[in-house]
């Protein structure tokens, strides 16, 4: 079993983007029958939360966050198949995409990584996603729909998605973000929350679901 020192090492390895150590420790934990859900919750997710906080505070830049997220993903790749066979439940299922007409994926992809690192099950719908595709994601169990838009020309599409989901009777929360998005805009179109950056999107999803940070 992993000792507290091992868990501290795992935490540090994620913060420092040391994927090899993360993979080695999580593999050992799996092989020794460790509660991987607890390991994820107690050591790994807090590590990525700290990385997100450092990014939001301007103490690290995107590439450093990427290195940590990828190290985290190395561990998740080992944990996920095990948890899939157990009764472990992710925090929630989130579907995310760039709205119809928007071909940018960079901001969306960062949010995908951070949401996975926070313990959410994430379905990436890609770019140029139709209103119907977002509605269908709700039918597949998404409790949160995240919308991304980069340009002022695609921003209005977010309102169309919100209205479309309402017209279809979907109750999933809607979280929006992107270079041209503000809290005022989120309020104006009736979105449930706004994320100012990738870690902010994680906080926004949690707010929308009434989960504590």
């Amino acid at each position, binding site marked *: 079993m992993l000792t507290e020192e091992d868990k501290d090492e795992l935490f540090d390895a994620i913060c420092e983007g040391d994927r*090899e150590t993360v993979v080695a420790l999580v593999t050992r934990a799996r092989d020794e029958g460790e509660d991987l859900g607890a390991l994820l919750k107690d050591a790994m997710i807090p590590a990525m939360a700290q990385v997100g906080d450092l990014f939001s505070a301007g103490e690290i830049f995107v590439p450093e966050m990427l290195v940590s997220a990828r190290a985290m993903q190395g561990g998740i790749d080992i944990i996920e198949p095990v948890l899939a066979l157990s009764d472990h439940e992710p925090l929630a299922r989130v579907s995310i995409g760039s709205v119809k007409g*928007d*071909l940018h994926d960079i901001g969306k992809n960062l949010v995908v990584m951070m949401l996975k690192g926070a313990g959410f099950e994430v379905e990436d719908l890609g770019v140029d996603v139709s209103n119907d595709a977002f509605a269908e994601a709700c039918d597949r169990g998404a409790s949160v729909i995240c919308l991304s838009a980069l340009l002022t020309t695609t921003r209005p599409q977010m309102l169309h998605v919100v209205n479309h989901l309402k017209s279809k009777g979907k109750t999933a929360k809607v979280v929006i973000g992107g270079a041209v998005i503000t809290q005022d805009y989120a309020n104006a179109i009736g979105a449930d929350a706004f994320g100012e950056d990738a870690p902010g999107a994680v906080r926004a999803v949690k707010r929308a679901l009434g989960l504590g940070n």
Partner: protein
Amino acid sequence: MTVPDAFRALPRHLAVTTRELLAVARPRIARQTQYAALIAKGGRRAAAVDDWLDRAADCMTALAQPAAVRIPLTARATPGGVLIAETVTIGDAGIAADILAGGRLTACLMTLGYGQEAAFARLGRDYALHHVQTDLAREALFALARAADRDQRARLPGSRLRRIPVQAHGLCGQRHLWDPAQVQALLSAFGTANPGVRQTDSGFFDPLHALLSLTLIRAA
């Protein structure tokens, strides 16, 4: 050679290889604050990013087909500014005055010639690698634009050139300078010389890594 003569003599296609673009883009990325800060820390993180840049460069080498196509445009002064290619009006009195004084306009369409989805697939749908690839591709595109500009300046030594940005992707909505309909009209002016760049209704170039620029050429 007069401006009109030199203008007519400009070659249409600029030959630049992916290798040449990466030779410029890779060190520029490493000097960007966000990457430089990480590389300066050394250790595994710096090694990881170095490896990602290598893999991103390999991906681009496999996929990219960079192209830069330059065409002359008709331009005439109107009461409101300048009418370009008989379809696009720029409300700029300064450009109108230069056109009246014999200035000429060229348009240059540049693309790396591959789509984001193809790159994402080639990189094993690895989000982090894909992000670095996108940063590197953006730098490569800017390198292509600078190469095209240098080439044009070198061929017109007796002229003054002014670049007029049309649309620069990745600069976010606040700097989306042109109406998509105007951009589409300019793209149409390339006809069969267009190296495969189209624009979506919402103003995105497809492939994403593409640029369109105008240059005003005046006598020195």
